[in-house]
């Protein structure tokens, strides 16, 4: 992700203040506390392995800038 030359100072200052702000968490005693990954402590729901979606490639690719025969084109990766 590019950051323009003239943005750098502002980015550095603001990011530093954010890191400094979140650093206050370091002082909290959390020994023996389980990290919380999900607000309802739910497990992952599984579904039956069957096809539920159908090919809508043409509709989906209306959003693409550069396609050819159903494929997305990007700059050359391998010479």
């Amino acid at each position, binding site marked *: 992700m590019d950051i323009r030359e003239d943005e750098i100072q502002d980015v550095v200052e603001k990011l530093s203040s954010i890191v400094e702000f*979140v650093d206050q968490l370091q002082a909290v005693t959390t020994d023996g506390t389980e*990290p919380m990954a999900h607000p*309802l402590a739910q497990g992952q*729901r599984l579904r039956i392995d069957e096809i539920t979606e159908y090919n809508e490639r043409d509709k989906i690719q209306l959003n693409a800038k550069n396609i050819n025969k159903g494929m*997305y084109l990007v700059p050359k990766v391998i010479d």
Partner: protein
Amino acid sequence: MPTQNIQNMTLCALKQGMSEKEFTSLEVIETLLTRISDHGGSLNAFITITAEHAITEAKNADKLMAVGKNKPLLGLPLAHKDLFCTDGILTSCASKMLHNFIPPYDATVVKNLKASGAIMLGKTNMDEFAMGSSNETSYYGSVKNPWNLELSPGGSSGGSASAVAACLVPAATGTDTGGSIRQPAALTGITGIKPTYGRVSRFGMIAFASSLDQGGVFARSVEDAALLLGEMAGFDENDSTSVDVPVPDYLGSINQSIKGLKIGLVRQHFDAGLDDNNAKAVREALEVLEDQGAEIIEIDLPNIELSVPTYYVVASAECSSNLSRYDGVRFGYRAENYKDLNEFYCKTRGEGFGAEVKRRIMTGTYVLSAGYYDAYYLKAQKVRQLISQDFKNAFAKVDLIAGPTTPSPAFALGAKMDDPIEMYLNDIYTIGANLAGLPGMSIPCGFVNDLPVGLQLVGKHFGEESLLQCGHRYQQKTDWHTRVPERFK
């Protein structure tokens, strides 16, 4: 019925008016579209107006009503935050990155409300990718507060809040990751509810922080919020975090008495940082609830002050992961000039995202990086557990928690843009509910310096009914929610 009254009517009143043939859905839609075209510009509340679609739908609704067909929201107008995917209609998330994105499907929320007969008038402005508390990070420019056009309506769902407060539309959808429904509702003097995490499907809701994001509604009464929430909520197999718990009849149970309801008042919320007059308005609101039979009990949330730093670690981490999908290949903005694939990605993302979004992506990448993961991300997840446990302990003693929604009334546009921490602290009272996945609602409870302020109610998981009953009871006894800014009367 003169059409100038339509703009001030709630959904429930419009529904009744249409069923009693006082006016048609088309008359309602046309009245509001005219208002949007007259006033929408000064507020910058909309990104897209779907007038043609709305008129066609209104005509269809009138035909259905003429033959006695009915649906809970048939012919009723609303607007969607431009973060909900709408089939064939621009969904930009207020970002240059998605300025050209036309979704091939409807979000479940949009689908559910459509199936109930609601008519979309347009897509509302917001902070870019819902990251902001003032609606100033939008690629389409800031939204103005209808109570004073030099002030912010709050964010991130600022366009929805502003449109509802200015009577451009009676209700709108929003999303709330750290307060993005409740804070703008408070700052614009309307009702806003964020349900329990998992209550409303996130399918088709453009992701910011997946363990915190939750869709909800803005309305001008709690009754309307109950009506809409009942129609949009429910299990969705397309969202793996959707919860399969039956949706109660929110509207049907809204008149239930609050006698004996135990309401917790958080001591820490009244520490330094809260405007004195704002605190007074909240205490007066609690007296109204006490008069209605509720019991007010002081409680503690000892770790609540840590909610803001915890949130900025967790939300930024999830944001950096979610937003990695924007690479310019399959959809969205794509840079024009590049030498190779790497530069293609860097320029696309560098040019497509605004400053606040980039800051959060970088913060998130930093707190997830190998050397800092334990110190920041894991630590924040543990503190999140402590905060959540505080709420559990509190709910062992009370049924609801009440307090201020924001530290002060609306602030000036530009006032906090240079200091991200000050901006973040605006959400100090709202973030806890997101971290713990609890439902929260803001209702107007008075004015400070001629600006509305909100009372926040937070409930137990899936306790939306209590929130709505309590809020409705309050609105039966007060008229703050009926006030309309002078300029938009």
